[in-house]
């Protein structure tokens, strides 16, 4: 990669603001005024990349809700040469589609103040379902690790810090085996049952109910109410202002005690061959190395009371068309927030990456990009 420095040298052409006058007048801790012009146009490219722990927070609109930890179970381990006590606490039972996270407490049981190193209170959560599916929140670090901003103050003897792990909506049959790490040590696993009051809806009804929650996205590409049977159709832009996408759409279903898990997917072009995520749909698909393609995955938990979006991801890449940067064509994308679609813009030749968990899908209409210059 000897040309990396040469390519980077071109970045010297990027204009920079003269900040010195504002720096001299600035009180530390005071944010700069928002640049009023920055939202005028997104011409080069828009990447939706995966997010930090906070960024993984799930919209509550129509989505999973936190579980009150009234009845709980916990596990404790002494780590760091006997200096710290780590306690992990989870709810005693959890329902499908509810948010699962682990409360973690770190207590300094030594006789001196301890400076916790970066990452000491950054936790990951690993869930293994009864049928062997695995979801490890650590995958999110591939997209956006969240190191501590500044060193935390020293932890005094007898004092504790409290953290809650990233959450994930329950989308597996129980009992779930849950493991968290503390200061680099894995705590003994905890087990939690998944309880659902009613019966799991029939597969066809569950798929139809999930499709009903997609804002009409699948209207022209509606998979049959049978698991694993693809259909070829078109995905229309919600505002009709972009050419439709030719796509292959499919619904897959897993049935557990009292609920179904329906995974809807869109692949374009219809004959594209690439793998979609199965266990963890929040980890985006891997696209072919060449050519325009897009994969959208959207997962729902369906109980007798209806469907709830619990996760999903998108990855797309479009033709650049070979046009000069200043003339790049725009490519629209649409995001569903549970109630409506909102339009965004990227540019042709870009890649879009959206990492879950989220309640809505993002679809980029790469059909708007020219195939040739």
């Amino acid at each position: 990669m000897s040309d990396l420095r040469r390519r980077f040298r071109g970045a010297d052409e990027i204009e920079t603001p003269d900040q010195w006058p504002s720096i001299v007048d600035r009180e530390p801790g005071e944010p700069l005024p928002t640049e009023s012009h920055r939202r005028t146009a997104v011409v080069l490219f828009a990447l939706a990349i995966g997010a930090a722990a906070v960024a993984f927070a799930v919209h509550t609109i129509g989505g999973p809700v936190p579980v009150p930890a009234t009845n709980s179970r916990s596990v404790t381990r002494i780590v760091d040469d006997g200096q710290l006590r780590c306690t992990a606490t989870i709810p005693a039972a959890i329902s499908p589609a509810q948010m699962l996270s682990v409360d973690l407490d770190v207590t300094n049981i030594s006789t001196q103040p301890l400076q916790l190193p970066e990452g000491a209170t950054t936790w990951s959560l690993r869930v293994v379902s009864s049928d062997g599916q695995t979801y490890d929140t650590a995958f999110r670090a591939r997209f956006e690790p969240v190191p501590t901003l500044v060193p935390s103050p020293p932890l005094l003897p007898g004092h504790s810090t409290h953290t809650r792990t990233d959450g994930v909506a329950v989308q597996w049959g129980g009992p779930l085996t849950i493991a968290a790490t503390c200061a680099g040590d894995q705590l003994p696993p905890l087990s939690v049952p998944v309880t659902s009051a009613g019966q799991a809806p029939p597969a066809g009804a569950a798929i139809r109910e999930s499709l009903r929650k997609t804002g009409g996205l699948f209207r022209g590409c509606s998979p049959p109410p049978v698991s694993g049977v693809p259909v070829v159709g078109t995905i229309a832009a919600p505002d009709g202002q972009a050419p439709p996408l030719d796509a292959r759409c499919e619904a897959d279903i897993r049935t557990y005690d009292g609920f179904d898990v329906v995974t809807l997917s869109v692949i374009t072009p219809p004959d594209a061959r690439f793998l979609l995520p199965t266990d963890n749909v929040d980890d985006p698909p891997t696209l072919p190395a060449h050519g325009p393609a897009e994969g959208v995955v959207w997962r729902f938990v369906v109980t007798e009371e209806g469907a709830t979006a619990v996760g999903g991801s998108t990855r797309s890449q479009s033709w650049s068309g070979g046009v000069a940067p200043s003339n790049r064509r725009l490519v629209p994308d649409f995001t569903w927030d549970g109630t409506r679609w909102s339009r965004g813009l990227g540019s042709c030749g870009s890649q879009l990456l959206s990492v879950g968990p989220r309640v809505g899908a993002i679809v980029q209409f790469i059909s708007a990009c020219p195939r040739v210059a």
Partner: protein
Amino acid sequence: LRPYLSVTDDEAVTADAAKLEAIYTEQGPRLWRSLYLSTGDREVASDAAAEAFAQALRRGDALHSPERWVWKAAFRIARGELAARSRVEYKVEYQDEAVVGIPDETLELLMALGQLSRIEREAVVLHYYADRSIREIARITGSKQSAVGVRLHRAKKRLRELMEVVDV
């Protein structure tokens, strides 16, 4: 984990405004662009750079090496700003105002950069754009040198793959 110690630097030199302004004149644009390339966000780059210099000004003679301190502080502040933006996904947007006129091959590199994880982006930007050594990158990012080396290796490999993708 180590016991907390309060360290006093007896050899601290004064970082008065004139000296810091000279550092800003020489390093400011490169720091800002490095932050922008790493975060993809003009606002975050501007805020992190300004905040780091403003804090350096207030610390005055407490800083042994203001230049080194500013780079480290700016990258940490940028990380914190990104983490504080609670949203489902990050939209890294390279606006037209910022990149119009830059060479196509650089533009393609920027697109590919967006596909790296942030720590990989930081490493590759600091090494290949800001000309920082692995040791310096480790200091700025608060990482081990071995970890920086691994990130650079992975980033180069990934960029090699992605350059083909963006050339579609």
